[in-house]
């Protein structure tokens, strides 16, 4: 893919990233940080590709192997920790949630 197409994707993704989370209650800052943290675990894909490029370069293979281990820790650990944090926000039986009616209506 040519550089300009990739730059276009980059710029558009920047805007989406800014827009999508510009209104977040303080409460969710930590879980959100942790969630985005899990998403950059996408580097694990880079690890797969690097392992393929290393083919018969032994040191390269070792480095790519470590990169995949790191990427896995990032992905798996990141999503699990975020889930544990958010588990705490589970709906309680008490129906007194008048504070955020707009959220209620958004539920599918």
């Amino acid at each position, binding site marked *: 893919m040519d*550089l300009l197409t*990739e730059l276009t*994707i*980059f710029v558009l*993704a*920047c805007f*989406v*990233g*800014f827009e*999508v*989370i510009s*209104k*977040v*209650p*303080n*409460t*969710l*800052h*930590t879980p*959100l*940080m942790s969630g*985005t*943290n899990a*998403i*950059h*675990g996408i580097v694990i*894909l*880079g690890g797969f*590709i*690097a*392992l393929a*490029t*290393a083919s018969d*370069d032994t040191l*390269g293979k070792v*480095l*790519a192997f*470590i990169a*995949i*281990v*790191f*990427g*896995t*820790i990032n992905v*798996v*650990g990141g*999503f*699990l*920790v975020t*889930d*544990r*944090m*958010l588990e*705490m*926000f589970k709906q309680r039986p008490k129906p*007194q949630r008048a*504070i955020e009616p707009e*959220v209620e209506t*958004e*539920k599918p």
Partner: protein
Amino acid sequence: MTTPPLASFLQDEDFISACYIAAAILFIVGLRRLSHPSTARSGNLVAAVGMAIAIAATLLKEEITDYALIAAAVALGTLIGVPAARSVKMTAMPQMVALFNGVGGGAVALIAWVEFRDFQPTGPAGNQSQELVATDVMIFLMFSTIVGAISFWGSNIAFGKLQELISGKPIQVPGQQVVNGLILLAALAGAVYLVADGPVDNEPIFIAVLALASLLGMLMVLPIGGADMPVVISMLNAFTGLSAAAAGFTLDNTALIVAGTLVGASGTILTRLMSEAMNRSLGNVLFAGFGAPVAAAAAGDDGDKTHRSTTPDDVAIQLAYASKVVIVPGYGMAVAQAQHAVRELTDELEKRGVEVDFAIHPVAGRMPGHMNVLLAEADVSYDKLKEMDEINPEFPYTDVSLVIGANDVTNPAARSDESSPIYGMPILDVDKSQAVIVIKRSMNPGFAGIDNALYYEENTSMLFSDAKSGVASILSEVKELG
């Protein structure tokens, strides 16, 4: 083509790209849902599904053949990551996030290194013909190397500080910023040289750049006080995202570009929101070495100030006969795991007809949202948690403010004392309530190393105890009142 039709369809680059588009959509939807309390958990799940799709699609790529080694690496990473994520205590979440962020940055730097080695003519894959590596590829490669290494080592130092393996106090050496600047310049010079001269036979220089960036990552975070660590972790999180995007450019992989950029952009916004909540610029956080000069200044005028201490039974009476109580939780509550005791006390007081609210400062604890998570864990109803702007006008009508392990966020010096380093930081106006009770282990200054003027106010009394046993003894005294 001798491959069967299904395999050739699955390995088709267009099919893989389509999967990446699906993953990108799921990441964006996931992030959006993560921004609302009631949908947040499903948002995380949606993003995880996106990740699974992206990973599966990549494994289909034709060039990826070494499945045994990949399976071994993934198994090893899972064995390390899952128990760590499962067993970490809620109070240790911030450092866990730092650690997971760090390994991501480390992975990016390592991938860059592998790619760099691949460009060597002596290297594998018959790259002799590719001695001219495109300039833009080299620029992105060096960017991901430097930023990835900074993120890895910076996050590790942040982890060490929060885990108290390294002193949480700002560690400062004179002229440190000059040294950091020089290291950065040297790393950049090396990177520019590599971009200009090409990668061939220049691996020693690449390793030198990697080492310099690693050193810079450590030195950058070392002088930052523990109170500012959340902002730093958030910034490093954005860094890792950007470096992952740069790796996507070098590897020609759109999934990496999209996901990395999303994290880079949203991480930058989060970082800004967090430093705004503390009324400080990011530059101030990074370069000011918060707290260090102030502790000395505050020590000077300690002599003429006195504080009152109180006992659990007194506190119990004050609380039980109040009509409105506001509880201000802070890091002390988190450390002592006092949230369940606090919830029991709340229940007991409410049974007696006392109105109890919680005042949540945006940066209470060591992470925004830290208190909400802990109190939610203890089943404190969500609508009792009031944010700063909502609760501040209510303090004048509050009989008792109960400060549990919070310090700097209640310091009235932030409003009145222009010489205070936290001057201008929005605080909870607890000093405006009729009475203030502070549960704290000692008079030692808090995380930012600043003396708290609140403790010397006439309406303030101190209950010296750790948060959990302090609240527990108040609770039993309240129960005894019958």
